[in-house]
């Protein structure tokens, strides 16, 4: 588990670099540049400085007293990634990749976005470092995540609407990859999750691993021990991998990844790639994938735009296959209830994506002993979801 991925980016049968030849040299160049930066203490120092002074890390690990009391079981802590600058964990990764882009002399960046959180975090670092920025976003997501579209534009980014397919995250990533094929010589593609071709899954994981490292330190300070369980939502899986990774060798810490069951796992309207998919290849890596029997990728569905993706990061597939992490599902309806519950109990409005993790914790916490500890990654704030919630009422 510690030696993965192999030099070609494989996590056992998952991962790899299934990319068009035009992109291969850029991926190899990125791998070398990232390898050098990883060993360079000045990169770590710079990254750390921006995380602290600009993004506001470390984020609090908050004991949710009222939520714990209301559920009557395990103690619940929330890792407040929603309190990062830009409102989600996405800035952890975009700062890392933008610093790397700057080292590589790239002045243009592109990104795909679903909920718009990664788009906003990319537009933000592009503004910070004076880079030209294009964000690819599905038209359906542009509609349901309008506040984030405005934020990206205010930050100086160009938002490119994507009409193909279901006009959601998968299609945005297709279009970003196509654009990158044509602009690869001077453009850096900031992928927002632990997916894509190698080295993205490992690079994004490492940039996000600060979440779990902080949790470990913080929980040891308040409770003097590791948590019993980590819960995080999984779309592509970057906040979950960031939460899990520091604990991967701590066998007693259970890890739960919560996928979006949408309208239900007995329908086709969900985004649960691990729980409802089979192994396939999309966007440069081999992983669990929602697809038909002929290998055509199915359209994912979730009320949470950031989970609305038919694939999942390859390392999650590996964790699922080896049993290191368990993957469960939560429906739209349950996520909306959790959204409302946390807002009223704790005065914290969670993103609809993070609400999936909250919802699962609500299911299992009551049956757990009071001395057990659950840490939920609250990956983003929910202001952006006001429109979606109003539509459901």
């Amino acid at each position, binding site marked *: 588990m510690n030696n993965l991925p192999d030099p*070609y980016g494989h996590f056992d049968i998952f991962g790899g670099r299934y990319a068009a030849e*035009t992109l*291969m040299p850029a991926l190899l160049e990125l791998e070398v540049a990232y390898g050098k930066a990883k060993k360079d203490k000045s990169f770590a120092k710079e990254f750390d400085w921006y995380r602290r002074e600009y993004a506001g890390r470390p984020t609090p690990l908050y004991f949710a007293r009222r939520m714990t009391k209301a559920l009557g079981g395990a103690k619940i802590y929330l890792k407040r990634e929603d309190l990062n600058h830009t409102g989600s964990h996405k800035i952890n990764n975009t700062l890392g990749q933008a610093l790397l882009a700057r080292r590589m002399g790239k002045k243009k960046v592109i990104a795909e976005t679903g909920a718009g959180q990664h788009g906003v975090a990319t537009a933000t670092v592009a503004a910070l470092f004076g880079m030209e920025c294009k964000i690819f976003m599905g038209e359906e997501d542009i509609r349901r995540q309008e506040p984030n579209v405005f934020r990206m534009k205010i930050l100086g980014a160009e938002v490119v609407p994507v009409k193909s397919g279901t006009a959601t995250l998968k299609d945005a990533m*297709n279009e970003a990859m196509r654009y990158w094929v044509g602009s*690869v*010589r001077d453009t850096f593609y900031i992928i927002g999750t632990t997916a894509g071709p190698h080295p993205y899954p490992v690079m994004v994981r490492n940039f996000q691993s600060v979440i779990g490292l902080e949790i470990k330190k913080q929980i040891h300070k308040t409770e003097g021990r590791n948590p019993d369980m980590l819960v995080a939502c999984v779309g592509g899986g970057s906040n979950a991998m960031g939460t899990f990774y520091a604990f991967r060798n701590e066998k007693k810490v259970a890890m739960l990844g919560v996928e979006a069951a949408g309208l239900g796992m007995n329908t086709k309207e969900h985004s649960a790639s691990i729980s409802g998919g089979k192994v396939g290849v999309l966007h440069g890596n081999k992983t669990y994938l929602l697809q038909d029997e002929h*290998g055509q990728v199915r359209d994912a569905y979730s009320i949470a735009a950031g989970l609305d993706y038919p694939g999942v990061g390859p390392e999650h597939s590996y964790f699922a296959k080896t049993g290191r992490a368990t993957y469960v599902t939560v429906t739209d309806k349950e996520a909306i209830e959790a959204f409302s519950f946390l807002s009223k109990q704790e005065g914290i409005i969670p993103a609809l994506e993070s609400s999936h993790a909250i919802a699962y914790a609500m299911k299992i916490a009551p049956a757990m002993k009071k001395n057990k500890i659950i840490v939920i990654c609250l990956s983003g704030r929910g202001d952006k979801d006001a429109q979606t919630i109003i539509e459901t009422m």
Partner: protein
Amino acid sequence: MGRIGLKFESLRARNEKALIVYLTAGDPSLDATKKLILGLENSGVDILEIGVPFSDPTADGPVIQAASQRALKTGTTLHGVLNLVADIRRVSEIPIVLFGYFNPIFAYGVDQFAKTAKQAGVDGVLVVDLPPEEASELRIHTDAAGLDFIALVAPTTGKGRLKTILKSATGFLYYISITGVTGTAAPKAADIAREVGNIRKLTGMPIAVGFGISTAAQAQEIGGIADGIVIGSAVVKLIDENRDSDDLKEIVCEYINKIKKSLG
């Protein structure tokens, strides 16, 4: 030597260049694709590239994306495409390359795919998202079946990497003429001449150039540089524009005739 190798040999002996044409199978229907293919062979097409439609063609421009979507809507599957090839083989010896993405092949089963493709009469496969680093899981089977594995070389491919690609390439080498997805820019002959010249220093394998060639003038110019040219998006567009015409086959064949003549 397979049909592809023999075709390039006989063309070389006559000092001719290969005209390679791409079609998306199942657009507008598998039946129409079959009729078009048989017509194309008579219009002087040397090698066929049959596109296996995929839901997420990330290396293709808008024209082939749309064609893939249409083909999928009419229910085209890899299984159906292999049947189409077997059907064509009953009446034609034209070399056939299947062009597509890895996931439909992976879902079909790599072992089964190689066997069935060979049996159907496929000569080579070109899998856009399967670079040499990942190709072995398919090549174990396609090499064993005697199918050519057509390698892509891009304008961004450096010399070191080119050598690696050449080590395992079979059939012919496909040089991507633009830094971009299919059919989205016009190729620049001077750049291509330089790059193809560099490749020639390292291999005697036939080199075909594609991605962006659409006019007779371009075909002539690039045909003067390479051993063959590939026309894809331009044909697919023509098929779409005339999909409801009774003269669809004639219109496409007339266009291909013009290209063929310009190749000399």
